[in-house]
């Protein structure tokens, strides 16, 4: 069985500071990590591999050459091979152009795999739109917000999915794309063997030509949405402070509000 896991390198968004005058990110000193939700998708792939021996896990990412780091991380965790889609032509891609590029990369990397796994969203863009668009472009069904793989065979799987306060049990024949809602609370530790392998592993780099992309559908020119303006958001800035010495006064304010 072939599984492709789509992964993304993201900045530590909880450490990002914003230049409020310029409306830009201050990236200096902010490290890049593997998007946590992508790690949940990888976990799910590994759990499937345990149940179906002989499964091959390929990871695919799109980004600058430095995105190799997340492939290394995925290999250290146990992925078999990794691809980085990297080309200047991809710059400025919105969700649609990204999904198109990834769908080309998936086909090139693994033909049509039985299962494609994604995290439910990336913590930098937070749109959660790329998986659905990718599934449609590949013409395969998608099951979103998967919480558990209940059963899996050579031809189909059954999963639990949780959304809008409902829990569903769904089954699909392959190929299918799943987005993973959450991981287990025990983070997987890389094995010594995989860590060594990742250390010397060289991901395969694919440019637009390698992935056989239609150039018109790529990057900024292939993106139907355009950011036309960025506006900083002002803070409230009129907080009344209390401490342990006068907290009763603050509680009295809360009480007033509760009774209002």
């Amino acid at each position, binding site marked *: 069985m072939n599984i492709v896991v789509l992964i993304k390198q993201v900045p530590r968004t909880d450490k990002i500071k914003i230049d409020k005058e310029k409306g830009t990110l201050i990236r200096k000193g902010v490290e890049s990590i593997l998007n946590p939700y992508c790690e949940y998708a990888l976990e799910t792939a590994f759990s499937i591999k345990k149940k179906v021996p002989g499964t091959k896990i390929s990871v695919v990412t799109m980004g600058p050459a430095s995105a190799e780091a997340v492939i290394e991380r995925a290999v250290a965790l146990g992925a078999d091979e990794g691809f980085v889609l990297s080309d200047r032509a991809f710059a400025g891609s919105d969700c649609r152009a990204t999904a198109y590029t990834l769908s080309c990369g998936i086909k090139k990397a693994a033909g049509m795999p039985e299962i494609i796994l994604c995290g439910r969203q990336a913590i930098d863009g937070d749109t959660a739109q790329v998986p659905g668009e990718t599934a449609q472009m590949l013409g395969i069904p998608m099951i979103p917000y998967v919480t558990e793989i209940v059963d899996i065979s050579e031809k189909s799987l059954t999963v639990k999915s949780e959304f809008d306060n409902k829990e569903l049990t769904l089954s699909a024949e392959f190929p299918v794309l799943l987005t993973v809602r959450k991981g287990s609370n025990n983070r997987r530790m890389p094995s010594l063997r995989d860590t060594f392998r990742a250390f010397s592993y060289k991901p395969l780099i694919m440019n637009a030509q390698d992935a056989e992309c239609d150039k018109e559908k790529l990057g900024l020119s292939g993106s139907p949405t355009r*950011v036309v303006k960025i506006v900083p958001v002002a803070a409230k800035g009129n907080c009344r402070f209390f401490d342990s010495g006068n907290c009763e006064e603050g509680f009295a304010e809360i009480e007033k509000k509760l009774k209002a």
Partner: protein
Amino acid sequence: MKNSGIAVVCSVETDGSFKNVTFELLGAARSLAEKTGESVIALACADENCDVSVLKDFGADKVFVLSHRKAGVFELESDVMAVSSIISEISPSTVLFPATDYGRVLAPEVAARLHCGITADCTDFDIDAEGRLVQIRPALGGNIMAHIISPSTLPQMATARPSVFKKREYKTENFEKNIVGNDFAELAERVLKLKENSIITGDSAKIEDAKIVVSVGSGVSSRELIQRIGDFAKSIGGVLACSRKIVEKGWLEQPRQVGQSGKTITPEIYFAIGISGAVQHLAGMKSSGFIVAVNIDKSAEIFNYSDLGFVMDAEEWLASAEKFFKIRQE
């Protein structure tokens, strides 16, 4: 033919009633329609007997009831087909989807099928000088609003956050109801089968409806403390929520998470206890009516968005609050 009409994809509960977000989006659509002179069209995936007359009181000129759904069939795949097909047929200029879990999946699938752009999680809309829809969403974790347009593809599509737009009472005349039947459910069932379906209950599911929300973050250092804060929340008629860190620790479940990757809520009173105010968290709560923050660090970002700030350790604050509100003594 020129595209015209602002379509709103309605969110229908299992009992056939409409979720609040439907009325909020109709309100947003009506405000846009007043600027462009278009009509407001509701698209509802629902039973053909569904009572849709309420939509005309909140700004809808007409409704298309897409009656393909079948009990026991997973609705998403067939809704993607039905919504795409009606959009191709009626060619609206704009389609708004609710940014619920469901809408955030439906919208990109429909957009991809129709080769359109799509903007996620909008919190405001406008019409620019050329009559195009300006889709405004928090970006880079919520400290910045990005204004986005789709200049070359139609319809313009976006999902819009629940609890952000205002429901508007607006009675329309000559309300038109159209029923569209088809067999998309059978098609969808060939690829995905629904085996079980249950509703998740408990107050964790309800933080978006609560008037008072008490939220805990990494400054709350133990499960016991969270439990006590939960008791405090209950005693003042509130519901317990949390930041992402608490979910990652496994101390509370994901449906309680407030923030960009959790829920956006606008309660009347929001307590942020031990929450420093990362931009992602702020994106989910800063429109709350009255914000009370508790943090040991006076320079914490959360205070910039708060009405009352307690510069105290969470446990110390809680002990004083319990005493003041006489929670433990009774």
